């Protein structure tokens, strides 16, 4: 929007609790973001929002300039609402962080006919659809129950719960329970569930310093993660409400792009475009692109390797240029 397109020097970005986004917690309390923002003569307020959906709503409604979210949510929420969004940083992909847990069976095929608790229409839903595909089932073979992510652990203890789809840290907590059998994880579909920092395209165009500062701060923390810095990891663990050991377990299931070059490579690869096409199709089938959407390509998605969908309505862009600039500066 024009208001956001103006040059400013005060910005805010938000994030919610998830293994791959805990670096933002560290970057915020330890002043890494402030340091990089100062360098570019701006200020960035990093806000933690307890509820993931709410954090995206904040971004879509224009209350914040950037928000940590997954590739699918970036497409179906802000982009589908007409907010031109840019994936500035691709931080990680889920490599086992999402999982399907069954009671009384360790075979995914046994999910047939069960009630499945999950956050409907989230990446979990997409992930579930992919899993079902792998055993030749469709969504018609199960029943989905919309469940708040925070309550899913407590719910699993109940005798009436048969299956859940969830992510970490809830997934670990459930897997630890005696009756919990993890039958399928996102490690089977690597590189499809991407966790990103998404910022408003117009704001970014008018204020490229915002992009540079965020990228700088992010990769400074990535170095600590790469070095397995215990103190930094402890702080992230604490913010996530767990301990060092618990947090490491979550990180094990997360493929962090600690090397910026790798992230650039992903963004430029044609596989990303394929993934996004699949996501767009899934979203269209579930009505997530809006009731009026005529087909899956109504919202244009642009990556360095090409555009999927309506080229005159590009609302989601993968932009490696800021990461590239950081790499060049190093």
């Amino acid at each position: 929007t024009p208001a956001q397109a103006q040059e400013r020097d005060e910005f805010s970005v938000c994030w919610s609790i998830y293994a791959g986004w805990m670096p933002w917690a560290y970057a915020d309390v330890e002043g890494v973001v402030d340091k990089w923002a100062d360098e570019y003569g701006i200020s960035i307020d990093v806000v933690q929002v307890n509820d993931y959906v709410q954090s995206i709503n904040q971004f879509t409604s224009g209350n914040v300039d950037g928000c940590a979210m997954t590739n699918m949510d970036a497409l179906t929420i802000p982009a589908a609402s007409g907010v031109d969004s840019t994936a500035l940083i691709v931080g990680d992909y889920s490599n086992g962080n999402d999982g399907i847990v069954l009671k009384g069976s360790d075979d995914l095929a046994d999910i047939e006919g069960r009630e499945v608790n999950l956050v409907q229409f989230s990446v979990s839903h997409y992930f579930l659809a992919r899993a079902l595909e792998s055993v030749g089932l469709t969504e018609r073979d199960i029943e989905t129950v919309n469940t708040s992510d925070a309550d899913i652990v407590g719910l699993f203890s109940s005798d009436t719960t048969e299956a859940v789809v969830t992510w970490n840290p809830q997934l670990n907590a459930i897997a630890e329970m005696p009756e919990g059998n993890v039958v399928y994880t996102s490690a089977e579909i690597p590189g499809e569930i991407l966790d990103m920092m998404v910022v408003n395209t117009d704001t970014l165009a008018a204020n490229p310093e915002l992009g540079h500062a965020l990228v700088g701060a992010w990769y400074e923390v990535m170095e600590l993660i790469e070095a397995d810095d215990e103190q930094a990891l402890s702080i992230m663990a604490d913010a996530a409400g767990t301990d060092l050991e618990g947090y490491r377990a979550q990180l094990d299931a997360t493929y962090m792009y600690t090397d910026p070059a790798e992230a650039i490579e992903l963004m430029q690869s044609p596989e990303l475009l394929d993934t996004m096409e699949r996501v767009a199709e899934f979203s269209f089938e579930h009505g997530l692109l809006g009731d009026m959407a005529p087909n899956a390509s109504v919202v244009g998605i642009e990556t360095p390797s090409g555009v999927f969908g309506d080229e005159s309505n590009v609302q989601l862009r993968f932009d490696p240029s800021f990461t590239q600039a950081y790499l060049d500066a190093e």
Partner: protein
Amino acid sequence: MKRLINLTPSRGGRWLLGLLPFLLLAMLYISLSNARLAENPNDRLLPTPANMASTFYHLATAENARTGQIVLWADTFASLERIVIGVGISAFIGLIIGIVSGGLPILRAKLSPLVTVASLIPPMAILPILFIAFGTGEAAKIALIVIGVTPFLIRDLQGHALRLPDEQLIKAQTLGASSWQVLLRVLLPQLTPRLLNATRLALGTAWLFLIAAEAIAAQEGLGYRIFLVRRYLSMDIILPYVAWITLLAFLLDQLLAWVSRLAFPWYHSGEGDNA
């Protein structure tokens, strides 16, 4: 010119005056909505009234392809069923415990502190325990409503049982009533209309817990729909749903008031019109 406190609007004028703030709010909304949509035609935050109306019409008439149900009615029916059962159970428990603990001092001493403490516990915070005890299906949602509403009803009814003039209990005994008969023929009939009244007061809380319960785990229901579509900021669904819930709450409230006036004329004798 009369003093301000002595000025009363005429009967017709009262209606118009009452509509005034609603009109102002509606105008405010429309202008804000127009402003946002002019900036971004895809904006979902403040949809136009026409947009909301057509979405609502769609929800109220179109069959869902997968389930074959009409969304709005399925949601409404599911939610009403939960709230009626939940409030019904609460009312029953409230009446029994209220009468017994209000009427029998020896039981009151036992129960009062427990009820007081129970009414202070925020039920939302002990959800996991509820799931274990009641599963995750309808039972849990109804249990949440019951747990949220019953302590209030018990306390209200107990209070009213205590406020019944001692004279009546004594009189009943001089007419030969046993303890059981006093409870049955003096307390029960006098507390029943009060129960209806207390239930009306508690309905607001009941809706609250219903929506909270549906937000946590559900497959249909008014709260479910709102929390599902909030993901997509689909205000064109949320806002009509909120209006619809408000209307339902109002109708339920009026229904109870009407039943009470019809069934217990003596209870309502002392009332003026409460604006």
